[in-house]
């Protein structure tokens, strides 16, 4: 049995190994992903982002518990930053997710952001596909949301959740622009702390200003205390409601199409660059072209367009 078939049978070791192969750009991965793809698209993908230490992992842990109570199997992908200097990473999200460590219906995987632009969204997207293929009903992706690709990952889920905490001063201002826009549910975690009211008011104002239409989904604001399991049931209820809303309004189709579109673009970018560069190199024109650009005889855009034309006419 090949590794893709083992993944389809829910074999944990195969799931784990295939995710590693994805992360390492293993040459056999594309073929294996092709085998899995027709069997995917069944899982409900939830994205969760927010400032470092806001309690994302603690929330994921408790949400996982709630979904297990409801009979759903759960996959978790927890993304932490890779050091740009050493390529290493400290992946500590599991510390807060120990309640489910030996539950065979829960699969938790930590991933470093690693280097390349776009590489992260491809790797997490493949990891989601793998967990989906292995039969997980719900897949939760946690990222700190520091970079654009991390925000994109959460945004491409069915239900993006943004976590805030009270007591940081200008909470709303402190959150990176672009993150608030993607929230379909806002969670004010650590609601046991001072200053909850202020975050709530700020969030409400922001949502008000956004001017949602009559039958649009207006992002609900929920309060949780993850460490005490407070507000978790309501959070999962709201996530399920959002999924129902998506399914009943065609929003789900739109999200799926958007995600597929983004995936196609990612891959065209990746493969297209290879094809064009290899073509130049094989023709022995690569370094001479670089020389020309260095001497300012041709500008990079013209050079790129010419190179693409050459491939097309081949």
């Amino acid at each position, binding site marked *: 049995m090949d590794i893709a078939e083992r993944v389809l049978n829910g074999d*944990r070791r195969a799931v784990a190994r295939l995710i590693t192969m994805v992360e390492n*750009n293993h040459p056999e991965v594309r073929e294996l992903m092709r085998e899995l793809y027709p069997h995917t698209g069944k899982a409900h993908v939830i994205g969760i982002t927010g400032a470092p230490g806001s309690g994302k992992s603690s929330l994921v842990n408790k949400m996982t518990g709630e979904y297990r109570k409801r009979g759903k199997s759960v996959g978790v992908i927890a993304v932490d930053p890779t*050091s740009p200097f050493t390529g290493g990473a400290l992946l500590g999200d599991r510390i807060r997710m*120990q309640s489910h460590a*030996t539950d065979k219906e829960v699969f938790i995987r*930590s991933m470093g952001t690693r280097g390349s632009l776009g590489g992260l969204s491809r790797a997490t997207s493949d990891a989601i596909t793998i967990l989906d293929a292995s039969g997980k009903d719900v897949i939760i992706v946690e990222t700190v949301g520091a970079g654009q690709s991390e925000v994109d990952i959460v945004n491409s889920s069915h239900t993006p959740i943004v976590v805030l905490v009270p007591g940081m001063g200008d909470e709303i201002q402190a959150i990176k622009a672009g993150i608030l826009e993607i929230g379909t549910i806002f969670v004010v975690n650590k609601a046991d702390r001072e200053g909850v009211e202020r975050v709530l008011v700020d969030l409400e104002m922001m949502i008000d200003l956004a001017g949602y239409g009559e039958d649009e989904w207006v992002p609900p604001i929920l309060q949780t205390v993850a460490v005490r399991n407070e507000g978790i049931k309501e959070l999962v209820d709201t996530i399920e409601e959002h999924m129902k809303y998506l399914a009943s309004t065609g929003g789900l189709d739109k999200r799926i199409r958007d995600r597929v579109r983004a995936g196609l673009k990612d891959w065209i970018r990746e493969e297209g660059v290879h094809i064009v560069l290899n073509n130049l190199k094989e023709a022995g024109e690569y370094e001479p072209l670089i020389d020309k650009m260095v001497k300012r005889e041709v500008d990079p855009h013209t050079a790129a367009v010419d190179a693409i034309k050459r491939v097309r006419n081949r």
Partner: protein
Amino acid sequence: MASDRIVRVLLAKPGLDGHDRGIKVVARSLREAGMEVIYTGLHQTPEQIVEAAIQEDVSVVGLSILSGAHMALAPRVVELLKEEGAKDILVTIGGIIPEDDIPELEKIGIKGIFGPGTTTEEIVEFIVNNAPKD
């Protein structure tokens, strides 16, 4: 496409002692050496450690045991890994391990055994040189 393998290491503290300063220093040094370090926290059972090692697909498991329970905990981890068919994973231990226990631990396949005098450089070097490459 080239394959860019990064060594993944699971660091865990089985048993009851609550001292995690040492293991955190090791975690940071391994990261500095370009590895991905999955830290799972305190009070882990061998079952939890092995399940995490499988899901995270690590090639190295580092145990920190200061409680004196290493002769119960470490062999159990090795045994469970074997049951899972993951015996290729390198298992190392750091902590207070009496000389007398070392041969027994080595016999069951534990490879790096680091006593209190060990520097983090030595641990990093050992893992760099001994992490299985498949």
